[in-house]
């Protein structure tokens, strides 16, 4: 509350009421310095983020091949209507949403449980912290290659373990029903450490007096966790959910390296589909249209998540 007040006061004194312009020479100088510091980043952001977005939006109404972009043909909204007319876009978005849902649903509870463990005084915390962070810092290419070997339907390590417990060989990446769950499992394994570290940071930022007060009032550990810790961590949870959702919607390496979108498009994640449309199918305009839709979808999902999971508690 006090921080908000300070900011409001500073804001009110630094700006002439109604005009938004600096009032004094010093304030003008501060504005110039601020603009100077921000300019390099803003220019790069403009050139490498927003300008390409505009070019992408423009390209989405053209039909052209990367082999001969000079022969681009204006097609209006045809690339967008093609997404409705043909089922590839719907299938790919559907697969991607399932993938994102699977990743988020598994990462959040597992990462939270790991964070609780890492925040406790139990032994081997350092070792566990290193273990769960290793997949996060390992290249996606290495992880995908390693999991391809693990999931080999004939000689993979996972099938070896299943055989020991009496379960027959599973097809995993070559099965339409098992390929996507296999990719979700791999991504959860890789991302759970990142989620755990974020939750751990949130847990360590909680004021100890609130849990202590709850305990003095007679709350059990479970009640403290459910009624105090989890509600107070809602901002962190929101952040982890949004980050994991965006990561999942942008996933490319698993589909590219492990399944090439197959079998039968069961793992045709949208970013891989966009790559495929542009570089293999030589439909760069259609790929741009898919990218525009993906951008809007990611924005919409993130905004919806922020609205639904908005923090109702402050400390």
């Amino acid at each position: 509350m006090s921080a908000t007040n300070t900011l409001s006061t500073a804001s009110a004194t630094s700006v002439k009421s109604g005009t938004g312009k600096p009032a004094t020479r010093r304030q003008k100088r501060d504005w110039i310095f601020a603009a100077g510091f921000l300019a390099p980043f803003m220019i790069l952001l403009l050139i490498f983020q927003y300008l390409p977005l505009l070019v992408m939006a423009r390209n989405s109404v053209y039909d052209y091949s990367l082999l001969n972009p000079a022969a681009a043909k204006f097609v209006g909204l045809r690339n967008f209507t093609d997404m409705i007319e043909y089922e590839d876009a719907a299938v790919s978005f559907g697969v991607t949403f399932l993938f994102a849902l699977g990743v988020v649903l598994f990462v959040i509870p597992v990462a939270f449980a790991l964070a609780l463990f890492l925040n406790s005084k139990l032994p081997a915390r350092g070792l566990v912290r290193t273990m769960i962070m290793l997949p996060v810092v390992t290249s996606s290419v290495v992880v995908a290659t390693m999991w391809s070997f693990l999931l080999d339907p004939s000689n993979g390590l996972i099938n070896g373990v299943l055989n020991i417990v009496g379960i027959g060989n599973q097809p995993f990446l070559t099965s339409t029903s098992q390929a996507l769950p296999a990719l979700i499992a791999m991504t959860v394994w890789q991302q759970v450490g990142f989620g755990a570290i974020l939750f751990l940071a949130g847990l360590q930022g909680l004021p100890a007096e609130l849990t202590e007060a709850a305990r003095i009032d007679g709350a059990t550990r479970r009640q403290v966790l459910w009624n105090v810790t989890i509600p107070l961590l809602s901002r962190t949870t929101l952040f982890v959910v949004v980050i994991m959702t965006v990561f999942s919607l942008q996933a490319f390496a698993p589909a590219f390296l492990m399944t090439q979108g197959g079998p039968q498009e069961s793992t045709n994640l949208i970013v891989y589909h966009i790559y495929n449309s542009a570089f293999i199918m030589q439909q760069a305009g259609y790929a741009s249209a898919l990218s525009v839709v993906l951008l809007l979808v990611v924005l919409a999902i993130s905004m919806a998540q922020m609205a639904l999971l908005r923090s109702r508690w402050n400390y």
Partner: protein
Amino acid sequence: MNACRLFFAGLLGATALYGTGAVAQDKAAACTAETVTLRILRTPGNYPYPAPMEAWQKENPCVKFEINEVPFAQLADTISVQAASSHPPDIIVYDGPNTQSYAAAGILLPITKYLPREWDADILPATKAEHSYEGEVYSPGIEQTTVAMYYNKTLTDAAGIKPPQELKDAWTWPQALEAFKACQQGPAGAPTVWGLGPTRFGNGQPGLVYQDLIYQRSAGDPKAAPESSAYKTFWALSPDGKSVDGYLNTPEAIEGLKFYGSLFNKEGVAPKVGIPNAFFDSKACFYIDTPAAGSALLKDPKIEWGITPIPYFKSPVVHTGSTTIGATARSKNPEIAAKFVVDMSWGEYAYMNVSQRGNLPTLKSLFPRFEVYNGYPMKVFVDQLQEWGQPRPPGPKFAQYDKLVTDALRAVAFGGDPADLMADAEKKVQRVLDR
């Protein structure tokens, strides 16, 4: 003082000698015109090789080379990007079946007028078909490959199998399946020694058009009536490259694909994923590969081996193809680039390039010079190439066709329904062809 005079005299003499070019290098002395730099984009370890390039430079001393290399997996993407840039390469070494795509997109320069008069009679028909588009030749081709079936002689002998060695005795696929089953060791689907080993191409998974479209094509008949499904099955794409409707999803193709799918599923004689070096480590009895595998085994005979012709259903067929070389239409020096491309693929330069890697030449006149291809086992490749060789269905949208049909074939190998998958593939390919 004398020493000083002597020094200046020496300096003057040296300057005069240098000015006349008496001590200049041969190359610099011979180049009297403006120097031209040809930019070449190729894959590592691919032609044009240093020896023929250096020999060519002696005849063309004003030409220099700037070589850029990218891995084969990124070659098509790189060409897509660089071809449209303001400074495209002058010469590209690319995957041969893309010739028509690149020609249609205006990337390649037609080289028909630069070819020697004897070229037409000397070139393999499959190579010429693959590298021509709308009556013009866009690449002369340097080397050619095709696939045949290798076998581990120790394993086949132990199973009492004698694979045929000549085309006239070639197995049908059902006969080959019996051999796979007889030679395989261990349970179907998870043996210790596979009947048919995995491909070394791509990520080792089945389905590649180059290797696996021949199953259904061989169920067709090129001599049948053009409107018949047997004829369409064999060609797998309309002659003008604009229609695939009724070419992939035919009764003959589906029968062939049912058999193909059974190898990986019901019969369990072929793995669904790659196993590095399975054949060379005696983990597979049979194995389909190009002459590259034979060349490697001739140099380092890890196993006792032989080659048998590719089996078939009704019409024997093997796909041809290799990387090839072309001059770009937007080259700043198209005449020189075209001359270099044609020279590298003709006569002694062609021999120098082909002999480097051990693949087959595209010129019939060069075959006798490669002794290894004059007798069994490598002669099987030459015979197949000349008698059964067909390019992969050529068309200006080959890359897209290749990707979509490969996905469908892979799905069949993974247990999908051939009729559904081929109907879907036809729909998707036609969508691309119609755009």
